[in-house]
């Protein structure tokens, strides 16, 4: 029982930065823009939050500025692939390299500094629920914020006119355009808001998980988030389930060792990616029969006014 409780706590902790980043990815990909710069954006967010926390001790300010930094760096991606209409894949990869270098450059003087990580705040009554209470309702404020973001993203995307417009940009931008909606504006701001969320995901590493700075503190989690966006089939609530499942896989890799199960670490390490391929395969086959497309139809496509395929 204690083992399960601790496993779930770890799964939620590992899943939270993934969830925040994945939501960011979902928003921009729903609008039709691929963002492969997640790893770099998370690093930028992590560094910003670390610096702010170190100097002000205010987690709220740290998170807010991490979001702004994530959004600002994402604007570069928007500039290149939306305004200048370059390839989104190339621009996204460049963003990862850029963010990695940028965080390394400005972080190099911060090595060795530390502060108290943000505290866990138990939610009254809820945290006493057996098994899941400790894991979901005795965490820090960023974890609760991630629940809020997931629900809000779902509500906006699927229950509001704004969300309908955003999703339409990812399905049929030319239709939106002919209806008088600005494809560029919708896509750009979806991308930037998504970048802000990814930045907050990065902040989780440096202010909640590891309260010190080292180069490359995210250790590749941004790429897991890229996979999670697909795994979650571009749905915010499925992203929540997916993030905790991936978090569980990460937490299980270590805890299996205490159980004395000698499984090759390589098998456990590839599980998240293997699951992504599996889910994608199953869903694609299932939907092909029903002629449904899960992936936003115009994902990754450059929009030119008047261009017909």
């Amino acid at each position, binding site marked *: 029982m204690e083992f399960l409780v601790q496993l779930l706590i770890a799964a939620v902790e590992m899943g939270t930065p993934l969830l925040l980043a994945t939501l960011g990815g979902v928003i921009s990909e729903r609008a039709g823009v691929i963002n492969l710069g997640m790893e770099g954006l998370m690093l930028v967010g992590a560094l910003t939050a670390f610096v702010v926390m170190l100097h002000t001790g205010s987690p709220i300010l740290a998170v807010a500025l991490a979001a702004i930094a994530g959004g600002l760096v994402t604007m570069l991606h928007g500039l290149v692939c939306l305004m200048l209409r370059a390839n989104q894949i190339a621009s996204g990869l460049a963003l990862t390299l850029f963010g990695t270098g940028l965080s390394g450059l400005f972080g190099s003087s911060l090595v060795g500094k530390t502060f108290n990580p943000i505290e866990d705040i138990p939610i009254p009554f809820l945290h006493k629920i057996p098994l899941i209470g400790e894991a979901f309702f005795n965490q820090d404020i960023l974890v609760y914020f991630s629940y809020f973001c997931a629900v809000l993203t779902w509500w906006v995307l699927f229950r509001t006119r704004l969300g309908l417009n955003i999703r339409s940009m990812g399905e049929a931008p030319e239709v939106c355009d002919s209806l008088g909606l600005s494809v560029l504006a919708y896509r750009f701001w979806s991308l930037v808001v998504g970048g802000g969320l990814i930045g907050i995901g990065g902040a989780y590493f440096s202010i909640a998980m*590891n309260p010190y700075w*080292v180069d490359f503190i995210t250790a590749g989690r941004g790429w897991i988030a890229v996979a999670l966006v697909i795994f979650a089939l571009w749905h915010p609530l499925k992203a929540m389930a997916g993030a905790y499942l991936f978090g569980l896989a990460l937490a299980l890799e270590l805890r299996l060792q205490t159980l004395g199960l000698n499984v090759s670490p390589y098998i456990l390490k590839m599980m998240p990616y293997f699951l992504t391929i599996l889910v994608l395969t199953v869903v694609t086959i299932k939907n092909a029969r029903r002629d449904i497309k899960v992936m936003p139809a115009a994902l990754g496509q450059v929009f030119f006014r008047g261009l017909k395929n």
Partner: protein
Amino acid sequence: MHKIHRFFLAAFAATFFLFGSQASMASKPSIGFVLVGPHNDGGWSMRHYQGFKSLEKHGYESEYAEMVPEADSERVFRKLARKHDVVFGTSFGYMDPMVAAASKDKSNTIFMHGTGYKVIDGKLDNYNCRLYQARYLTGVAAGMLTKTNKIGFVGSHPIPEIVSNINAATLGAQSVNPNIEVNVIWINSWFDPPKDMDAAKTVKEWGADVLFTTTDSPNVVTLAQKESTPAKPLWSMGNDAPMNSFGPDRYATGAMFNWNLFYKSVMDSVAAGTWKVNRSFWGLKENCVGLSPWGPNVPGEVVNKVETVKMNWINDEMDDDFPFSAGFTKQDGTVVKAGEVGRQGIETMQYWVKGVISDFPVK
């Protein structure tokens, strides 16, 4: 230690690597050195960097390249070899690129490879330090500090160097407390801070109250500082470099490298023209490894005991291969007699001693 993980880090940042200060044309031989991580990584690469920089006061100028991916390193070695008398590479993964660069080099430049096992007579030597000796001492401290008789390790990769370190700590702890159990959680990475922290929590959940790490991330120190209570005290041990700043109250000590004297001896022998291949493997006696400063809350008796053992060792009461040379029991019950395991046995160690309860990891 073999910082293979740095490859990924460095691959991303390859374009950002910088060459350090230009060496002046001094009369003393000059140094070019290559680091696999950033020079201020807080651990492995930082200790090498500090070692080389300490030579400046002796007149040995140096130039360096940091975050050099192993796959791209031969070019860097050759570039440095054109300008400098001695070229150092400080990661296990540089072994073959260094061999290639050294065999193509027609000048008098000497190549020195940190860790590894390949040499070229008159051209390329390798070197390492006996960190397991210092780890034994931290084990003695841990054996006295623990109340639960459980010691936890966050392990990086189960390579012989790390395995021998964990075994040495276990034997050290058993020397003062025969009931010690040691559990190792492998993160299978040199570097993954989030997972590293989770591994530290996992060994704590298991009941360990003295937390060790073999990675450069200070999570065990952070965790001990944050979660230690008077009823359930926790202690942490650093690795490679002092980590006390991350949790001063619950920091005990740590095994760490100190390359200054070794690098000075290499450069002095080059300057004197007496350099030759000898596969140096220095330890406590030569002050190539040591203990990081004691935390303020460590009981005086622990400090006294460990410092006494250390002095006895330095005064030759124990040999270089101790504790392994003294004989021990393996996890499976096999008895290893005194003198059976020497340097080669230590450098290829792939089993646990009795007291480590984790299974030996599968590959």
